């Protein structure tokens, strides 16, 4: 009889490997914590033992169950051993956990941490497996994929290290949190002094509407927003501002950090593409190949909609795509920030798109055709009668497109950033409570997972922004050009 579950030896069985890994982690944690907090160390080991026992019995039960259910065996009766194992498991694991919790023999939270250690290891392991790094014969691999799985491991490791790097940065943030009060105190006091040139320019700009006092309020409100209003990881501009608070350049960078990071993203994008395409070869190198692959994929996607108009609009679409992609991705590096996590930048991008689309609409359709498009192409008496209603509705419809574009991009990137901030924040709190060894590894793991997720979101949102730009451009093309598309009939 062939066993249903292969890989009996501990070297290849994924569950056994995970349990061994979690034992190692539990003992490492316990060893670190033993001198300082023996109770917590004990609780972690106890939780780990309970979960290991649980998995041991679960493994036995599943094997017995699958063998009993195997069609060939004929014996469909559950053996007595099954119930013996089951009751032993219930007694040992649940009874043990219940006793430990009820008698307060060990602190509760570390016990739960110990219990979840094997689960966390299993989770991370399955993720590595999904990313293509698996040392298991369950999915037999061709030898040449060894290189790719190595790359996946490198990727995972680099995310993990990045997450670890992010934690001291927040340790800095919690020190930094005390400062806004002080800053807010002296900020409105000197809105027009030379030490605060940004506030001075703001006061000039806002002088017509608010007057001098208004500008001071504006500056401090903005400051409060960037300091305490939202959760942010400190980036190098904030840190620089801490070291050189009097330097006007640094101060200006601190006030306009989104702008700084947007410029930086543009620069990074230019440099990367320049390096990739410096001397293009027929057999491309890795970087050139990657860039060419992105451009060609986007060409296919956009070409399906724009057809022969593609060469005209493609540079704009790709510029938007790469710029947003770089801005999104740059936020994953600790100490940097996604400029797209503010509505200002995304709205600016959407406004550029909006103007580009509308101007192209006027050029393509002609002024009269454009007005016809805005009026909803009335072709009968009812259509003309509805004009006073349809024109505002159409204008609103056109206006809402850039707003929805920018809100979506902002919401997604900001949400991901906040998620990472929250998880790094938990780790930083634990750091403050001197629970370093307990907090950092699992938190770094979880943060690394969210960073992976953020990478995905960054790519998908950049793609969607540029795709919707393409769709809006397509809607503005002359009628006969896209007569094959259903939608074109009704709209243009």
């Amino acid at each position, binding site marked *: 009889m062939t066993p249903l579950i292969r890989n009996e030896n501990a070297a290849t069985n994924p569950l056994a490997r995970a349990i061994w890994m979690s034992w190692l982690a539990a003992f490492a944690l316990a060893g670190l914590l033993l001198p300082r907090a023996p109770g917590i160390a004990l609780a972690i080991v106890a939780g780990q033992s309970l979960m290991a026992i649980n998995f041991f019995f679960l493994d036995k039960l599943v094997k017995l169950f699958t063998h009993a259910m195997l069609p060939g065996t004929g014996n469909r009766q559950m053996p007595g051993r099954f119930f013996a194992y089951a009751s032993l498991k219930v007694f040992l694991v649940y009874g043990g956990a219940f006793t430990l919790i009820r008698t307060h023999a060990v602190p509760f939270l570390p016990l739960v941490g110990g219990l979840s250690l094997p689960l966390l290891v299993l989770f991370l392991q399955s993720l590595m497996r999904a990313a293509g790094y698996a040392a298991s014969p369950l999915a037999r691999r061709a030898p040449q994929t060894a290189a790719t799985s190595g790359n996946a491991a490198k990727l995972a490791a680099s995310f993990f290290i990045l997450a670890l790097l992010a934690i001291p940065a927040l340790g800095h943030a919690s020190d930094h949190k005390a400062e806004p009060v002080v800053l807010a105190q002296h900020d409105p006091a000197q809105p027009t002094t030379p030490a605060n040139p940004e506030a001075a320019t703001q006061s000039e700009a806002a002088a017509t509407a608010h007057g001098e006092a208004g500008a001071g309020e504006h500056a401090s409100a903005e400051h409060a927003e960037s300091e305490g209003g939202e959760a942010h990881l400190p980036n190098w501009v904030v840190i620089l501002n801490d070291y050189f608070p009097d330097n006007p350049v640094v101060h200006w960078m601190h006030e306009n950090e989104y702008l700084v990071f947007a410029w930086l993203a543009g620069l990074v994008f230019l440099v990367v593409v320049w390096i990739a395409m410096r001397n293009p070869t027929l057999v491309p190198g890795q970087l050139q190949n990657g860039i060419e692959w992105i451009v060609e994929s986007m060409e296919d996607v956009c070409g*399906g909609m724009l057809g022969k108009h593609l060469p005209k609009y493609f540079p704009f679409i790709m510029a938007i795509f790469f710029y947003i992609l770089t801005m999104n991705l740059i936020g994953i590096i600790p100490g940097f920030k996604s400029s797209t996590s503010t509505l200002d930048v995304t709205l600016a991008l959407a406004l550029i798109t909006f103007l580009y689309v509308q101007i192209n609409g006027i050029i393509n359709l002609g002024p009269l055709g454009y007005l016809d498009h805005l009026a909803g192409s009335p072709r009968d008496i009812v259509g003309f009668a509805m004009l006073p209603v349809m024109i*505002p509705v159409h204008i*609103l*419809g056109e206006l809402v497109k850039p*707003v929805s574009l920018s809100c*979506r991009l902002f919401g997604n990137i900001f949400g991901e950033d906040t998620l990472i901030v929250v998880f790094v924040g938990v780790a930083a709190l634990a750091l403050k409570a001197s629970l370093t060894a307990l907090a950092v590894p699992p938190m770094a793991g979880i943060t690394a997972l969210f960073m992976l997720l953020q990478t995905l979101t960054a790519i998908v949102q950049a*793609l969607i922004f540029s795709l919707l730009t393409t769709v809006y451009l397509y809607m503005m093309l002359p009628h006969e050009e896209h007569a*094959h*598309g259903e939608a074109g009939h*009704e709209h243009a």
Partner: protein
Amino acid sequence: MTDKEPNKVTAWRQVGLLTSIPFILALAPIVGYFLGKFLDQKLRTQPWLSFIMLVLGFVAGVRETIHIVKMSQSED
């Protein structure tokens, strides 16, 4: 272009288009309201334009949604 490409294109276009429906539906009345409020301040017609634009914004949102669904269904 291979046979698989148009499917990928359609799928991505549909993802992009359909996921923008909630934003359009929610934001169209809001944009309409603020536009109406701005016009109210300019023309001194206090509550009227903001209310009318709110309703029109709602209509525009629904209209755009119908349009988006039609576009996403069209084979291309």
